[in-house]
C-alpha cells in the first residue's frame, strides 16, 4: 500500500509516494538517492543509518517512512555548506577519525547533535553520546579526540 508523504530533507521539501512498510532509510537511499546514509545492520544496532529528524538523532532503519511525514530530516549530505566541510567534518579528517568511513556519516550527525546541545561535553559525555554508533576501524580513540578538540575550539570561540 502506498502513501504520499511530505518531508523536508536537507532544506528541500519533497513529496514522495512511499510504501507503508518502507523505512526512512530505504526512502533516503533508494528513492532520494542519498546514499551517504549507511545501512550497517538494518536492526537499530549500529548507528550507521543515523540522521537528524527534527534535530534529534534517529536510526533511520527503525523509522517507518510514513512516520517521517511532515518532519525535517538532515542527512550527511546536508551537513557541508556550499561544498565546504563543516568544522566537524574537517576536524574528523584532520584527527584521523575516519578510516573506512562507513560509520562516519552517522558518527558525524551524532556528534553534531551532541555539540549543538552541549558545546562543552566531558569525556564521559562524549563517550556516552556516541555509544550507539559502532566503529570497527578506529577503536574510537581518534573520534573521541576529534570531538574533544571541537568542543575546545567551540569554547575558545565562545560557542557558536
Amino acid at each position, binding site marked *: 500500500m502506498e502513501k504520499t508523504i511530505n518531508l523536508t530533507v536537507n532544506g528541500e521539501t519533497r513529496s514522495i509516494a512511499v510504501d507503508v512498510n518502507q523505512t526512512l532509510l530505504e526512502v533516503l537511499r533508494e528513492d532520494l538517492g542519498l546514499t551517504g546514509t549507511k545501512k550497517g545492520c538494518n536492526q537499530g544496532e549500529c548507528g550507521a543509518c543515523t540522521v537528524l529528524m527534527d534535530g534529534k538523532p534517529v536510526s533511520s532503519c527503525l523509522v517507518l517512512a510514513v512516520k517521517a511525514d511532515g518532519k525535517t530530516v538532515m542527512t550527511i549530505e546536508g551537513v557541508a555548506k556550499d561544498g565546504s566541510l563543516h568544522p566537524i567534518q574537517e576536524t574528523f579528517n584532520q584527527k584521523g577519525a575516519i*578510516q573506512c568511513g562507513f560509520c562516519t556519516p552517522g558518527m558525524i550527525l551524532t556528534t553534531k547533535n551532541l555539540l549543538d546541545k552541549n558545546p562543552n561535553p566531558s569525556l564521559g559525555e562524549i563517550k556516552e553520546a556516541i555509544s550507539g554508533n559502532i566503529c570497527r576501524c578506529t577503536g574510537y580513540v581518534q573520534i573521541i579526540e576529534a570531538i574533544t578538540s571541537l568542543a575546545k575550539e567551540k569554547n575558545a570561540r565562545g560557542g557558536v
Partner: protein
Amino acid sequence: MTDYKVVGKGLPRIDGPAKAMGKAIYTVDVNLPGMLYGKILRSPYPHARILNIDTTAAEQLPGVKFIMTGKDVGDVRYAFVDTPRYPADEHPLAIDKVCYIGDEVAAVAAVSETVAEKALSLIKVEYEILPGVFTVEEAMKPDAPLIHEELLEGTSAWEDWGVAQKKQQREAEINVNNMSGHSAISFGDVEQGFKDSDYVREDKFELKATAHCQMEPHAAVASYDPVEDKLHMWLSTQGIFLKRFLLSKTFKMPIGKIRIHHTFVGGAFGGKIDLFPYEFCAAYMSMKLGQPVKIELEREEVFMATRQRHPMVIKVKTGIKKDGTILAQDIKVIADNGGYRGSGPIVVFLCHGFSFPIYNVPNYRYEGFSIYTNSGIRGPQRGHGAPQIRFSIDSHLDLIARDLGMDSVDIMLKNIRHQGDLLPNGDRLNSCGLKECLEGAAKSIDWENKRMQFKAQPQEGRYKTGVGISLCAMFSGAMYYPFASAAIVKMHDDGTATLFTGAQDIGQGSYTTLSQVLAEELGIGLEDVHLVAGDTELCPIDIGSFLSGTALVTGSAVKLAAADAKRQLLECAVEVLGVDDIGELETQDKRIFVKDDPEKSISFTQAIQTSVFKKGGNPIIGTGSYKGYSETDRYPSLAKCKGLFTGAYGFAAHAAEVEVDILTGKVKLLKAVTYHDCGFSLNKTIVEGQVHGCVSMGAGQAISEEIVLEKGQLFNASFLNYQIPISLETPESVDQLVATYEPTGPFGAKEVGEGALAGILGAIGNAVHDAIGVRVYSLPITPEKVLRALKN
C-alpha cells in the same frame, strides 16, 4: 632523520572529505539502470544431503527473473587455498550436499529484494539430514562422519603461472579424519632440549571463533555487457586482481573479459578476500539475463556465511634454564576451519610463521592441523593466526615466570630476536625493534610498580587491578597471487601527477600513504597527486590489501615508478640547466634545481615541454614494480613451513592494565600500551589509527567477542548479541613508534595495522592473572570464566 617533506607527517587522508560528506561510493551504494536484486537461499541444516530442489512455485511469482541452483552451475570449484595438495572445495551453490548452516543452496534475481525474499520462501528443498561433527575432537575421531569424502583434483595459481614446484604427494602417512590442512616443522633436538632444561611446563589454551564485523556488509554488483562480452563487477573487496583471477577461473572466461570497478570498502579485516558465492551468483545471473544484478548480504548472513576467525586449541610445552633461557619448545595447534577448507592450511602454517620470529628457540617443534567441522567457514582475519598463537605462547611464558618466581619481561628479553638475526627458514630480520618495543611498553605501563606478582600484600576490595605484557610479529606481504605490485605515475603539464595503483583502500589509508610516497619521491606536494585506483582495467596489478603487503610491496612499486618519472624529468633538465649529470640535480615543489646552485632551476612544466619537443613526444610516464622476493624458487611450503615467507617482519609489544570486578567477574581494560616497530611511519595519524583499531579489536576478542555456536547453529548473529567494543569501553591508549629502518621498504616502512592486534590478547590475559592470581586459559575472558577460575 632525513627531513622529509611529505612522508612521515600526520597528513589528513585524501579520501577523508568524500567520506565525511557521504559522497564516497561503496559497493552497497552502486545503483545501475535496470538493476535486479538477488538473494541467496541457505541451508538450515549443518550437514545434509540435498535430495531435491523444487523451484516451480518460486518461478511463478511475478517479478522473479531467474532462479539458479547447483545443478545449473555444475561442478565449479574455487577456494582461497587451491593447490595440488589442497584442491579447491567450495561450490558457488551446493550440488548434492550442504556442510554448514548458511551453506548456499539457491539464488534468486528479482525486481526487488522483497520479491526475491518471497521467492526464497517458495523454494522447496528436500534434505536428508546427516550426522554432523561440531568440535575438532569429534571430527578427528577415527569413526567420525566425513564432511568431504571425495578426493579432489586441482591446480594452483602458482602452477597456472608456471612458478610452482612439481605436484606434491598427498600425505598418506597422516591419518586423521576430516583433516583439511597440516603443517609440521622441527629444528634442533626437542627431546634433548627438554632433558637439558631445568624446568618444563605444558599448557593448553583455547580460543573461540570471532567475527570481523566490517561495518559495510558484503555486497556485489554484476553487470554483464553482451555486446562487448564483458563482465563488469563492483565488489567490496581487499584485492581486485585476486578476485578477477578467481572469477576468470570459475567462469572459464578470459581474464581480460572481466573488469572490477573501483568502490570504497567499508572495512574488511581479512574477511573480504575470498571469492564468495553471492559474487559468483550475481555474475552468473547477470550473464544469463543481460541485466545488472546486485546482491547485498544482511548482517545475519555476514556473521553466519562469510568468514570467521578460526577457533583453536593450542598446546605449548617449553623447557627453560634457571636463568630464563628457553631451550626447547613443542607447539601443537588444532584449528577448526568449518564446513569448507577456508584458509585452514594457511592459518596453521601462519601460527608457526608468527611464532618463530619472536623468540630464538634452539630446539623447536611445531605441528598444526586444520580440521573440518559442520560450522561456518573460517578464513583470514586481521593477524590470521597471530592472535591465537601469540596469546598462547606468551600466556604460557607468563605462567612459567610465575612458577619460577621470575619476571616475565626478563624471560622475554633474554630470548627475543634481534636485528640481523637469520630465521631458520632463511628470512633475515633486516629491521627488528622488539627489544625497544618490549622495554618501552613495560616502562609505559609502569611494570615495576604495578605488577602485582611481586607484591607482598594482596589487593583489598572488590576491584583488582593487574598488568600484563605480550609480543607479536607480522609479515609485510607474502607470496600470493598476483605475487607483485606495479604502479604508474603519469605527469601532467602543470607538474602534478596521477598515480595509477591497483591497491584497495579498505580504511587503512593506503591511498593516502601511497600518494605520500609518490609526492616525496618526485618532489611535489600531496595535493599535487591525483589518484586512479582499484580498477582492474585502469590500474596495473597489485598484490592486494591483505597479508599486510601494501606499504612494503605496493609502496616500493610506487616509489620506483615515481623515481622513474623523476629520472626522466631530470634528464630533460640536464641540458637546460647546463649540468653534466642528473646527480647534480634535485627536485622540490614541482621544480628541478641545481643542488649546488639552487637559484638555477626550471619547473616540471618546462621539463615536460622539453621532453615532448626533444624526446620523441614523451609526455613522461613512470613505471615501477616490486615483488617481495626476487628469487622465484623459494616460495613457502604450507605443509613443510619451508621457503622464504616475507621480505620484512613488523613487530609490536603490548602492555595492558586491567581491572577485574571479582563480584561480577567483569574485566575492564583500563590502559592499553602499544610500542610498535613498523620501520618508518609513512603517516603518523594513519599509523596511530591502525594501532588503535588493532587494540580495540584485540581487546574485544580477549574480553567479550565470541561467536556462540550450538551444534552448528549460530546464536548471536547481531551487533546486539555479538559484543563488539563500543565507545564506552575505550581504554586510555598509548602508542609509540619504535623507529627502525627496513631497508627493503619505501623510506624504511613495513607492516603496520595487522600484527598490532596479536599482542593485546596475551597482555590482557596475563594482566587478568596478575589481578586475580588465577589463570583463565580460554578466550574470551568472560565474567563466567573469571568467576569459575576464582572459585577453583
